[in-house]
């Protein structure tokens, strides 16, 4: 990868592109100031935000950060540049918000604007590009992620951002937010757990019986194809019927709307990645190895636990990764059928045309999905037998 980026004068081509885009974004409104939470705000560029004591340090770190990102042969400097830029970005955001709100009226709201979001994306991409260049070991990546998450929590907890509109939305629904978060995690991880409990034995059966495999896998991929809203919708009458005919089902909380149909829909969607990757994981042991294992007199179970599962683990985990990331995203739809989760805020926000409420639902979902993806990727890589260069097999991921 490194020779590819040795541009002229040691300039990194992606770095140049990102810097250009970053500088252009500085011209876009960095924040918006609105009279209340519903109306459209007025855009303010970075230098209109506050006094020079706030603007200069902020702008300077962003500009220096972008420039540091240009040097292709110094990935560490590029990484530092990205961190510096991000610091400047959040400095501007946190310092200018209270100044903007002063005298703007009781219901006034400030929000990050297009410029902020673009710069955020540019700097994150710069960071990712520098990290790709450095190709850190899995554990280092995990450490980095942990650092970023910690910094983010400190930033949010410190109250430095509490003047932002989205944080006000949060403040007025703190309880609901935690419930939604718990429900979202419960839906995503719970359905994944159920899919694992069903999918792993099913995958093992499919691996051993070609006939079952030929029936089960196409059915599961067709299930995967059904648009989520339709799937969630179809679950409603189905579970409603079960609840009304089986009293015991109703007693344990199965009902037409709410958690149960969302859970079941997510479970059905996760089965394909779990089962398909289970099968290809088990098949990933080389033919000669499987033959040798049989020839040495290993029983079916011994072969499974000592050979096929350990060798297939990375592929099997990759399946769980796809299912988990997919579930986190799809759990948003649960908000439409009363299943709770962050989707509740997204759809409430869409109803009220309250942008920040939409963000309050969407941003944590995105953050959760990214975190889950990074953690699972690390897991996949760690279980990769370092000796043999196997690569993970991706399964088509599920849509929406």
């Amino acid at each position, binding site marked *: 990868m490194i020779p590819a*980026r040795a541009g002229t004068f040691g300039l990194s081509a992606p770095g140049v592109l990102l810097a250009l885009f970053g500088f252009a974004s500085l011209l876009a409104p960095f924040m918006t100031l609105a009279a209340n939470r519903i109306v459209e705000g007025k855009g303010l560029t970075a230098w209109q935000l506050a006094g020079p004591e706030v603007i200069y340090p902020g702008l300077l770190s962003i500009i220096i950060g972008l420039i540091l990102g240009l040097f292709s042969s110094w990935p560490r400097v590029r990484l530092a540049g990205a961190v510096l830029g991000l610091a400047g970005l959040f400095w501007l955001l946190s310092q200018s918000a209270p100044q903007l709100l002063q005298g703007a009226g009781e219901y006034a709201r400030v929000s990050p604007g297009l410029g902020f979001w673009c710069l955020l994306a540019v700097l994150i991409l710069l960071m990712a590009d520098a990290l790709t260049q450095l190709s850190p070991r899995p554990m280092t990546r995990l450490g980095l992620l942990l650092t970023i998450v910690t910094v983010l929590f400190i930033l949010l907890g410190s109250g430095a951002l509490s003047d932002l509109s989205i944080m006000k939305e949060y403040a007025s629904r703190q309880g609901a937010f935690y419930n939604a978060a718990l429900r979202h995690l419960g839906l995503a991880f719970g359905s994944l757990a159920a899919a694992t409990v069903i999918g792993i034995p099913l995958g093992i059966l499919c691996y051993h019986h070609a006939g079952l495999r030929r029936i089960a896998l196409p059915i599961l991929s*067709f299930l995967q194809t*059904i*648009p*989520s*809203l339709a799937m969630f919708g179809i679950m409603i009458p189905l579970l*409603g019927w079960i609840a009304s005919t089986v009293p015991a089902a109703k007693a344990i909380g199965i009902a037409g709307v709410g958690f149960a149909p969302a859970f079941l829909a997510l479970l059905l969607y996760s089965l394909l990645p779990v089962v398909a990757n289970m099968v290809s994981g088990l098949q990933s042991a080389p033919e000669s190895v499987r033959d040798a294992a049989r020839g040495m007199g290993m029983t079916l179970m011994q072969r499974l636990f000592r050979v096929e599962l350990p060798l297939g683990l990375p592929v099997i985990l990759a399946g769980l990764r796809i299912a988990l990331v997919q579930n986190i995203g799809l759990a948003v*739809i649960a908000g439409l059928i009363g299943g709770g989760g962050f989707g509740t805020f997204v759809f409430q926000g869409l109803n009220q045309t309250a942008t920040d409420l939409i963000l309050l639902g969407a941003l944590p979902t995105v953050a959760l999905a990214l975190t*889950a993806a990074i953690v699972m990727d690390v897991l996949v890589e760690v279980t990769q037998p370092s000796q043999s260069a196997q690569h993970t097999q991706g399964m088509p991921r599920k849509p929406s």
Partner: protein
Amino acid sequence: MKKNAIKWSTIVRVLLVVLLISLVVMPTWFSWAFQPFAPEKGPIIYERASLLSLSLSHLGLVALASIVATLVAVSLAILVTRPLGTAFLPLSRTITNMGQTFPPVAVLALAVPALGFGTGPTLVALFLYGLLPIFENAITGFSTLPPATMEAARGLGLSRWQRLIRVEIPLALPVILTGVRLSVVIALGTATIGSTVAAKTLGEVIIAGLLTNNTAYVLQGGLIVGLFAVLIYDALVQLEGLLLARYSISND
């Protein structure tokens, strides 16, 4: 044995297509089936907009977004797999990897603050999200061409442009098509949710059902969207199979 299997799947396909068309064009034929799910004395068949026009608008949205996404994504993939663009390859991989962990619903929801409500933002969201799987697959397709074939193409004196048009694109086509299929399936689903941001799609029927507690609507909308998705997915799979079969014969 095999002949029978082909016949069976064809019969099932034809039946599903007929069912789908009649559900869309003559929904009242199915009143009896949806009756038990409708609230007492409530409407059974969705009539605020014709199911046909919703279907056409839904499919049109998906088709437009997917066609534009395919053109853009394949062009970008061609760019980053040329010597000039290789510097951008790692970055573009990072973007596609990160981008695909973004839930499509979130992309749709985030398009609203940026672009407002309606069909426009939905189209943009479908397009943006649709780029990723096509781009990813196109890169794979262009970077895993058989080296012997490429060497032969150079040896035969084909120019860069000729190699691209006559060799690389046709050979990468099945892989690209897989990406297009993924992208279309995602778009069909996301467009359904698009009706929460006021796009005119079949999702409207389901949402209306959810809002008025009319399960008959939910079931109708769900059934039609589900059938469209499954049939379109199946058609694209068949198309890929056809292409692959043709290549493997011509390679012999």
